């Protein structure tokens, strides 16, 4: 059963190595680390990392070398890539076992043409940054995965172990100003407010009703992952703490801890 969930941004810039000399949005990173830290403190038996990607799949552990997709040439630490690849190889077996339960493909980021979703790089980094050493499962849901199957996958993930904690990487619209990645779209205000309301009030069922077409137009990459989260927490009484809600770079970021009632 699920014991706790956290909602964090999927923005690659959360990973400090991608920032250059000066940290970008340190308050956002701190909020996300606090949310991840709370998940880890609940001592889960399995920590599921879920984000949106090009396809629905489970994934092996990222290596630091994956950062090169966003920032070629940055990191002398890439000499550690082989070590990380070995570690990822060990994790791949577990990912495959779960993949068959979930009836989704098990992917390795080492396959040509299958880069690990950036959302999972961020989630994996967050867990590393708060010192999580337990079992983790990385899952992506496709950008175009229908709401019902996102929710089904979420429900199945929630049932994979006795104490499942869920880290969801998901963002709202990227159209919140003329400098935004997706330029200004006035519809983003209402869209993001509805998501914020659903998370704040714990009325996660509302997330299942999000218009996927509108979400795509607003470059709200989190839609499928939110719906996975709604499926995972379906039936659980949720009390939310919103740790960050702002759009400093034109993308709607929301950080929240979603605590399940009656779980110690």
């Amino acid at each position, binding site marked *: 059963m699920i014991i706790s969930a956290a909602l964090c941004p999927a923005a690659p810039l959360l990973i400090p190595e991608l920032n*250059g000399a000066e940290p970008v949005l340190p308050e956002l990173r701190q909020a996300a680390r606090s949310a991840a830290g709370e998940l880890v403190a609940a001592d889960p038996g399995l920590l599921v990392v879920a984000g949106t990607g*090009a396809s629905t799949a489970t994934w092996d552990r990222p290596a630091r070398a994956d950062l090169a997709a966003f920032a070629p*040439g940055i990191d002398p630490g890439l000499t550690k890539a082989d070590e990380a690849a070995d570690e990822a190889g060990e994790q791949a077996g577990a990912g495959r076992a779960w993949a068959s339960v979930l009836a989704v493909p098990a992917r390795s980021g080492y396959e040509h043409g299958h*880069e690990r979703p950036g959302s999972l790089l961020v989630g994996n980094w967050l867990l590393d940054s708060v010192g999580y050493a337990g079992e983790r499962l990385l899952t992506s849901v496709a*950008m175009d995965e229908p709401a019902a199957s996102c929710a089904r996958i979420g429900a199945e993930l929630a049932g994979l172990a006795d104490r499942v904690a869920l880290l969801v990487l998901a963002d709202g619209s990227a159209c919140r100003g003329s400098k935004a*990645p*997706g330029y200004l779209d006035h519809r983003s205000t209402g869209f993001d407010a509805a998501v914020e309301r659903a998370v704040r009030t714990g009325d996660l069922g509302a997330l299942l009703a999000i218009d996927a077409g509108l979400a795509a*137009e607003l470059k709200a*990459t989190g839609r499928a992952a939110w719906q996975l989260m709604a499926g995972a927490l379906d039936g659980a009484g949720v009390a939310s703490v919103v740790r960050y809600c702002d759009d400093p770079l034109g993308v709607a970021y929301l950080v929240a801890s979603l605590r399940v009632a009656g779980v110690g």
Partner: protein
Amino acid sequence: MTAPEAGPAQKGSGSGSGAPREPGPLRLHGRSFPTGQLLVMAIVNRTPDSFYDAGETWDESAAMDRVHQVIAEGADIVDVGGVPAAPGQVVDVAEEIRRIVSFIAAIRATYQDVVISADTWRHEVARQACEAGADLINDSWGGWDGKLALVAAEGGAGLVCAHAGGLPPRTRPFRVSYADVMTDVLDRTQGLAAQAVAVGVDPASVVIDAAHDFGKNTWHSLEVTRRLGEMTATGWPVLASVSRKDFIGEALNLPIQERLAGTLATTTVCAWLGARIFRAHDVAKTRQALDMVSVIRGDQPPARVARGLA
């Protein structure tokens, strides 16, 4: 592109597009520019809202004053654009034509020798620009309009084949990633160049461009700068379009108005790595930096040497 993970539709295979081409003279406007000659392409915007000049040459007489000035400062090519790269106010085909075609004709009427470039991704605009006297179509959006190359061929113009990572025109990169950005740049630009030649563009008038900042974050633009030699090694003439761009701003943490030194440094690196055309806002200073590179390389003699020789 809406999917952050979808990335560019075409992933690099690493195979490039066959053997490198033999570098040769660049032919534009009936003139021939040898491999060692570094050309300045001056930016002349016919827009009210471009990122650096912000409407300074929106007025037609101000734009023509700018043309006089950049030619006096040593520009070899004048690049006329009517649509900003950033998203914003819609500029449709008719409006883009209205902004640049008669202006190109006016430049041609005044300057018979200068190479004129039309900065457009649209074939309808390119066709009229060629009729008005344009010699080069600068397609920063990487072949988005499939008819553009044929129009350039029919108009006897050259073509800039750029890498925008598959992004639609006037969109910003959002969490784009590449297994290897330079492989993607090489594959796409060489692919576009081959297509251009296949539809009849003179191979001596085809140019490739990494298109810094287009479909790239700052790390990607720094990488293509660092590895620009891989582009020049293809044998196609390389255009470097870096002037005052955001990757320079983020590298130095400086606003647009303060990016000249960073621009000149980047220009110098690109020149050293073999780029041949440099698209610039600051023509006189770019010309000076490039002349210095040419002198250091020995492609051009120093202007006057007496030191220690008296």
